[in-house]
């Protein structure tokens, strides 16, 4: 019966093939390649989160070119190896293994989506390759191990930032919180907002809940109105934030609403319209920031890609810059030494703020606060941690 011959044959072919690949592809060591330093990047260049992945890639590529134009690191040029994970689960693990064992990269950059960073992180950890995620905000990512870093702040930090903004800038003494109970992100922000707000001497006068996807918030907002807070913290996503703002104004709640980076979307203003006037939210980066680093970066980016940078590209740019800085300070590309140098990163002047890596390998850095005025999103201030 030829099924058996066929099956046996195919297995034999596969086995022989893999043995051959095993022999031919002697994996290059970390220092192979001589005059270049190989850095791996895995990202969602295609698929559902392609815009995030491509922006990040553009930022990283810009950083690599700037570093190389300035003479490289340790006298060597940076060589970026980019692989696409197609925004698919399972692919991140495959491409990261390829980058490490076939290409022999010394460090890894990626990814935006926390679930794919979580898939790749254990492999980098086991291989002793430092990995920097530009924009995965889920706290679990860096908990994987001591080789995993990130250059964005984590979810809870924004809660703290907005509490400080409410008490210091808006001089608010009372606040209400409206949380999306379906989202880890929202719960995290709310928890840390409350802690910081109370610690600053403020008072939480009301706490209300909704579920992501709700359309009607009148019940919660009526209760909030009765408690008459000076600010309302709404740490949800832009879809609900717009609706909440509309309904709050209709009920006569005229105090500012505050939010996190979940608000950042081109569709926020079209949904909320005039109701969002005076509301603020925290995020990673603003193109209106007048600091020279930001403006230089933006001009170069615009010249290079002929488009305006979003929030993902500068995070990719900073990830690459911090890595180059760490390799420089380590004086070698050895994984453990680069990791130690990364962990010791302090007050690195990045485009997205001054970055210090904290003991949990998360970036401790300032957040940007944006306010909506006259139907446009305006940069207000940078808040230090």
């Amino acid at each position, binding site marked *: 019966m030829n*099924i*058996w011959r066929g*099956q046996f044959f*195919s297995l034999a072919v596969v086995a022989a093939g893999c043995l051959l690949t095993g022999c031919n592809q002697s994996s290059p060591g970390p220092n192979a390649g001589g005059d270049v330093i190989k850095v791996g990047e895995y990202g969602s260049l295609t698929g559902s989160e392609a815009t995030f992945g491509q922006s990040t890639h553009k930022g990283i590529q810009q950083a690599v070119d700037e570093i190389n134009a300035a003479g490289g690191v340790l006298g060597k040029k940076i060589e970026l190896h980019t692989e696409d994970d197609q925004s698919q689960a*399972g692919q991140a693990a495959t491409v990261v293994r390829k980058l490490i064992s076939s290409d022999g990269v010394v460090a890894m950059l990626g990814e935006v989506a926390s679930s794919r960073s*979580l*898939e790749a992180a*254990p492999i980098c950890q086991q291989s002793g390759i430092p990995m920097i995620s530009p924009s995965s905000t889920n706290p679990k990512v860096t908990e994987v191990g001591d080789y995993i870093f990130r250059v964005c702040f984590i979810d809870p930090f924004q809660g703290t930032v907005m509490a400080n903004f409410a008490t210091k800038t808006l001089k608010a003494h009372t606040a209400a919180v409206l949380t999306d109970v379906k989202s*880890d992100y929202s719960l995290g922000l709310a928890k840390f907002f409350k802690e910081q707000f109370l610690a600053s001497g403020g008072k939480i006068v009301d706490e209300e809940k909704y579920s992501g996807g709700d359309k009607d918030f009148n019940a919660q907002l009526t209760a909030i109105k009765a408690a008459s807070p000076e600010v309302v913290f709404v740490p949800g996503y832009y879809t609900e934030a717009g609706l909440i703002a509309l309904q709050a104004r209709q009920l006569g709640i005229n105090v500012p609403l505050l939010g996190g980076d979940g608000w950042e979307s081109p569709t926020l203003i079209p949904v909320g319209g005039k109701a969002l006037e005076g509301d603020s939210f925290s995020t990673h980066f603003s193109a209106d920031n007048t600091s020279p680093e930001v403006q230089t970066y933006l001009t170069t980016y615009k010249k290079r890609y002929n488009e305006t940078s979003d929030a993902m590209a500068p995070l990719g740019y900073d990830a690459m810059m911090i890595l180059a800085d760490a390799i420089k300070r380590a004086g070698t590309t050895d994984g453990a030494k680069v990791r130690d140098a990364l962990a010791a990163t302090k007050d690195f002047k990045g485009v997205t703020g001054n970055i210090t890596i904290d003991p949990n390998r998360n970036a401790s850095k300032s957040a940007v606060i944006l306010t909506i005025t006259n139907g446009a999103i305006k940069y207000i201030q940078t808040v230090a941690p």
Partner: protein
Amino acid sequence: MNLNLRHAKTGLLGALALCFLVTLFSKFINPYWLYILYDIGINIILAVSLNLINGYTGQFSLGHAGFMAVGAYTAGVITNQFGQLNAFASGGVFLGALLAGGLMAAVAGLLVGIPTLRLKGDYLAIVTLGFGEIIRVILQNVDSVGGARGYSVMHGWTNFFWTFGLAAVTVYVIASLVNSTYGRGFIAVHDDEIAAEAMGINTTKYKVSAFVIGAFFAGIAGGLYAHSKQYITPGGFGFMQSIAFVVMVILGGMGNTVGVILAAILLTLLPEGLRFLAGVQQIPGVAKMYPLSWVGDTRMIIYSLLLIVLMLTRPQGLFAFKKRQR
């Protein structure tokens, strides 16, 4: 038949021994290619088990990734209860977890099978599609397995022996099944349901058992997948994943086990081969530098185009060299 079966058993034992041997040498294989081999083995199990449903029995299931998800999460949750174990104990626990994953998937197959398999053709396809999505959405909302964020599996126990050993077992079981007296019923259901019913074959029962057996092996493949990637997210078991397995079956030729195996190998290797091609800076034998990096950007388009060309030129299945053995 006796002679054939004896050959089959020799083949199975030979394959298992070979897998075991290769496993001993797997330290010397580049990990990237090694894990691609695991993907191949897992996809062989999935494609061959789906072939029982879509090929031999002639039903149209679009929910195979759903069964895989059930197996992946079940096996992952079970092995995560154990700490570091020695090689012998881990093998036992792993096999137990894989079987449990397979059984859970088989139960899921039974649950979806009983009420829906009275449906035919397109209607069945839609129901199985819906079922696969229901599993995904449920997993997305179960916090204890991480919800949409995903679930981390501690042990990377999947190795060459387990993937290809179990692939060989799958092929053996399914090929023996459809060649047995009982198994002729599957083919009868495929060929003409009314005639089969007139001959006294309980077509619903056959369809349900095809689903249960197919789902069982899909669950085992899911367990292997979970312990190979060590991180599973509900998004990884979506509708597109089910389609990928259906493509393997159709490309290999419905009801042609060897063809389906080869299609699973080809379709797993093809995207990676194109990735490899994208890294080529110079074509051997050509003096001029001719980087093929454009292949990287257009990799998935080339892949899709190849699929279209293959389907146009080999509609009977890429590897269908002769008529299916009856």
